[in-house]
């Protein structure tokens, strides 16, 4: 014959089992029907535990829902804001494209004006890049990123990016060397590969401390890669994964400007191409970023 204690223990275990999955069959009548005061207390305690847990669960799911809504509102705002910015930038870009020629016609294009025009042009390009980054973020988070591939030479794509950065590298004091390679033909989304190389190179210049920067391309069987190497501030091991995440940056924002989006966007783009992006780095020695993508000839 089971003792009253045994029965109580079994009952308690059964209720704990129920409570752990969010149910509870204890009623006030059951509590009142218990024989002694301590059993009543135990049963009442279990019921209270269940109610506390349920309240916690509801609160948690309400918070989660609130959080989801907030993220959605943020993404919506980002999308609208980034697109609103594009129209004024279009006007700026077109006006600035045309000004040097106009000034030259009027004989007003002296050295000083040329220098100022170049500064304006650089800043408009920077603004364009920032807005493009925001647009990309909203495209990626809403799952609307699409690639358009064409037959192209990877070496040529990366070389043209390196050439474009000649002036920027010079201004920062870094020499920029492109390690030449025979053509690597394949199916590539030219503008997206350009964008990733552009991001890596602008990082190399920004964090490169004015030291030499090298860019290169390699082919290995079905895959090909390009890399950007600097000898700048480097990235501590504990940050080397984090930098590829959204809004994350290893360098302090008090010293280095930026949205913390470049490498995240790059990783999303490279992964959409079926490739990988990785970094080897040591503090004060510099970083080598390598992008490996399928050949797809």
């Amino acid at each position, binding site marked *: 014959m089971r003792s009253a204690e045994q029965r109580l223990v079994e009952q308690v275990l059964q209720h704990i089992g129920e409570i752990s999955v969010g149910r509870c069959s204890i009623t006030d009548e059951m509590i009142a029907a218990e024989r002694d005061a301590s059993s009543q207390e135990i049963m009442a305690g279990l019921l209270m535990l269940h109610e506390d847990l349920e309240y916690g669960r509801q609160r948690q799911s309400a918070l989660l829902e609130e959080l989801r809504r907030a993220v959605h509102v943020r993404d919506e705002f980002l999308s609208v804001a980034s697109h609103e910015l594009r129209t004024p930038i*279009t006007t700026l870009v*077109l006006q600035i494209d045309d000004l040097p020629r106009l000034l030259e016609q009027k004989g007003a294009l002296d050295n000083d004006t040329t220098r100022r025009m170049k500064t304006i042009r650089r800043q408009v390009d920077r603004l*364009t890049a920032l807005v493009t980054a925001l647009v990309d973020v909203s495209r990626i988070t809403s799952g609307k990123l699409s690639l358009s591939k064409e037959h192209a030479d990877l070496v040529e794509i990366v070389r043209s990016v390196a050439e474009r950065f000649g002036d920027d590298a010079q201004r920062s004091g870094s020499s920029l060397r492109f390690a030449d390679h025979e053509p690597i033909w394949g199916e590539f989304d030219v503008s997206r590969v350009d964008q990733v190389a552009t991001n890596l190179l602008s990082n190399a210049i920004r964090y490169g401390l004015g030291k030499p920067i090298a860019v290169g391309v390699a082919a290995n069987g079905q895959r090909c890669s390009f890399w950007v190497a600097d000898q700048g501030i480097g990235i501590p091991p504990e940050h080397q994964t984090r930098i590829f995440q959204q809004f994350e940056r290893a360098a302090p924002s008090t010293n280095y400007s930026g949205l913390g989006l470049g490498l995240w966007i790059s990783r999303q783009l490279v992964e959409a191409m079926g490739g990988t992006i990785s970094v080897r780095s040591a503090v004060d020695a510099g970083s080598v970023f390598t992008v490996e993508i399928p050949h797809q000839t």
Partner: protein
Amino acid sequence: MTTNIMVIDDDPDLRETLRVLLVENGFGVSEAAGGQEALDLLAAGRRPNLILLDLTMPEMSGWQFLLRIRDTDLGTIPVVIMTARPAVGTLPPPAKELLRKPFDRATLFAAIARCASPDPSP
């Protein structure tokens, strides 16, 4: 023989910028601030060789404008869409090209060159 381009955009600065740029490069330009104004100009007999069309405009959007001209004799005029919106699926005829804002002058002229043939009529 001048290639005539109609610029339809509700942003007056962008319209003005495009007009100056196009006129300097030998194009004839007419402007409309919206779909209805463009339809009025077209109805008045001004037939361009190409239309540069913004999509997001108050009152009559670029999409609505395209729907209105699609099945008329105006539907043969090539249209280059200028948009800041991210996802534009397949272009509805007679849209031929898509310029994503911001675009530079080289991209603009390349798109125009691919679409516009000078008026063949005498």
